């Protein structure tokens, strides 16, 4: 539905986006995820028409919209700061976009009221933005875009300005609204939890490049390279001491065997904390010893920091609240061979 074709955007001599291409499907909740300064917001501004790319094209339903000004694009952008009009009340804020389409007053009234119902803003019509809470402001900002029935709704860090509890609530609301309206959502975020929880597909970006695209599950369980592995979720990395006879040796000279078809020369192996177990899954599991140095309490599942001879860095594992671990005691840990990833 939206095709981004080899977009390049430079600021001065700095590349904000380098030869970036991506296809986004109709009705999809798509997330652009990356550290700050990776070009994700610039890409969003290129799609919404606020930045003109130096090269490349953007197609929306096969139509080239690269040179469309923001006010005629069938896309709407929800700003990170919400950017509500301070001198308009909630009703007028929402009606503004429809008034620009020169619709009949009665239709504007009908559509604004409809969206006010759907976004739970009843009773707040006469309030001004400075009389609203953070969550209410966000709903007004959303309603103001959705009432225009855009083909694509762009969201710039939609949850960043909210506190933790409200964030969880708004996550659900966003997802419900997206399903209900069936509009394509493209969200920019630096927060991987948001991206993984909300999006149908996630694009991981770094330094203006697309690193990996996939469903949250694919991205999490199959990070293509070191950057994604490090950026998404938590991952322990073990440096190699040597590779010999198809085996990868850790710092203490214990080893795991590399897959038979392996052709790369990995610098390190990575393993998710939840893949380091207290019990062996099978006979071929890699076994190592470590000392518990810290336990970080989270409630249901706690994080445990382990020091071990196999790695210079501390190792992070997870343990269920019912499991008792004592500080400064040695424990034996098991990792299935196939849960190691090579980088």
């Amino acid at each position, binding site marked *: 539905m939206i095709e981004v074709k080899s977009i390049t955007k430079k600021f001065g001599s700095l590349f904000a986006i380098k030869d970036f291409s991506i296809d986004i499907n109709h009705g999809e909740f798509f997330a652009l995820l990356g550290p700050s300064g990776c070009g994700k917001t610039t890409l969003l501004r290129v799609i*919404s*028409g*606020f930045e003109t790319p130096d090269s490349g094209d953007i197609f929306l339903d096969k139509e080239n919209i690269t040179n469309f*000004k*923001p*006010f*005629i694009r069938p*896309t*709407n*952008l929800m*700003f990170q*700061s919400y*950017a*509500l*009009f*301070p*001198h308009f009340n909630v009703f007028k804020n929402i009606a*503004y*976009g429809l008034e*620009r*389409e020169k619709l009949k007053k009665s239709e504007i009234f009908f559509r604004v009221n409809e969206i006010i119902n759907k976004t739970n803003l009843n009773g707040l019509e006469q309030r001004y933005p400075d009389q609203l809470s953070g969550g209410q402001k966000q709903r007004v900002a959303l309603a*103001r*875009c959705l009432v*225009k029935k855009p083909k694509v709704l762009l969201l710039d860090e939609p949850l960043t300005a909210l506190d933790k509890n409200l964030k969880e609530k708004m996550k659900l609301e966003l997802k419900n609204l997206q399903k209900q309206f069936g509009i394509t959502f493209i969200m920019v975020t630096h927060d991987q939890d948001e991206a993984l929880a909300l999006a149908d597909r996630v694009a991981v970006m770094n330094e203006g490049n697309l690193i990996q695209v996939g469903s949250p599950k694919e991205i999490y369980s199959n990070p293509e390279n070191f950057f994604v592995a490090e950026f998404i979720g938590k991952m322990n990395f073990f440096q190699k001491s040597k590779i010999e006879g198809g085996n990868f040796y850790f710092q203490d000279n214990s080893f795991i065997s590399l897959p038979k078809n392996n052709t790369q020369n990995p610098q390190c192996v990575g393993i998710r904390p939840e893949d380091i177990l207290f019990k062996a899954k099978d006979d071929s599991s890699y076994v190592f010893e470590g000392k518990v140095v810290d336990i970080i309490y989270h409630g249901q599942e706690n994080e445990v920091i382990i020091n071990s001879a196999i790695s210079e860095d501390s190792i992070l594992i997870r343990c269920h609240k019912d499991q008792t671990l004592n500080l400064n005691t040695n424990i034996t840990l098991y990792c299935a061979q196939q849960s190691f990833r090579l980088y």
Partner: protein
Amino acid sequence: MKKIYLSLIFCFLYIPILTLITLSFNKSGLPTSWGGFSISWYFDLFDNQKIFKALLNTIIVAFFSTAIAGLLGTLLAMGMELKKSNKYVEATAFIPMIIPDIVMAISLLSFFTLLQFTLGLHSIIISHVVFNTAFVCAVVRTRFKYFDHNVIEASYDLGGKHVITFIKITLPIILPGVIAGSLLAFTLSFDEFIIAFFTSGAGSSSTTLPMLIYSMIRFGVTPEINALSTFIILFSFIIVFISQRAVKGKLLI
């Protein structure tokens, strides 16, 4: 102790003004003796055709210089706040605020003479526009710090083209600043003497109120002048009060 200092400073600032107001009601007409309460000087004031003409001139100058400076200053402030500005533009824009009036008066006069420009009310208006633009710009810019500039892009995004966005979004939000800046410009222009004196030309037809007061004062301070000054103080006070409220945004938003 602090309160005593404060009252001393306020006395220093306001006793001369209070003296002037009191003397404007002095029947005797002499600053040295109190001859009883009277408002006769105010009646004399209204009968004085010269004063009336000067007042009219002053209002014309203040009105037109404020209108032009209001427009230019607002546009300048918008450009500086919304487009990429640099420190040289900023410094240049504020020079008319800090340059001594006498220097500006002389330079404007030499400039007009060089162009062989006829002097009169119009040249005073142009001269006042120069410094008023800087003051309006400074006040409007403070208003730009008050709101999220993304609202302008939000308006474009929702289908508002440039003119509509300016009329419906930007202007209403900065309007308190525009009003406050214009009122400030009006008062500055209203009692400006040096620049008006230099750029008014030879004839008496373009005499403004401050110039008239100056010429009258050469024959001593008359109670009539006191009465006139009281009016001007009252008028300035009202305008400053309104403009202060406008800056705080209480006027419209």
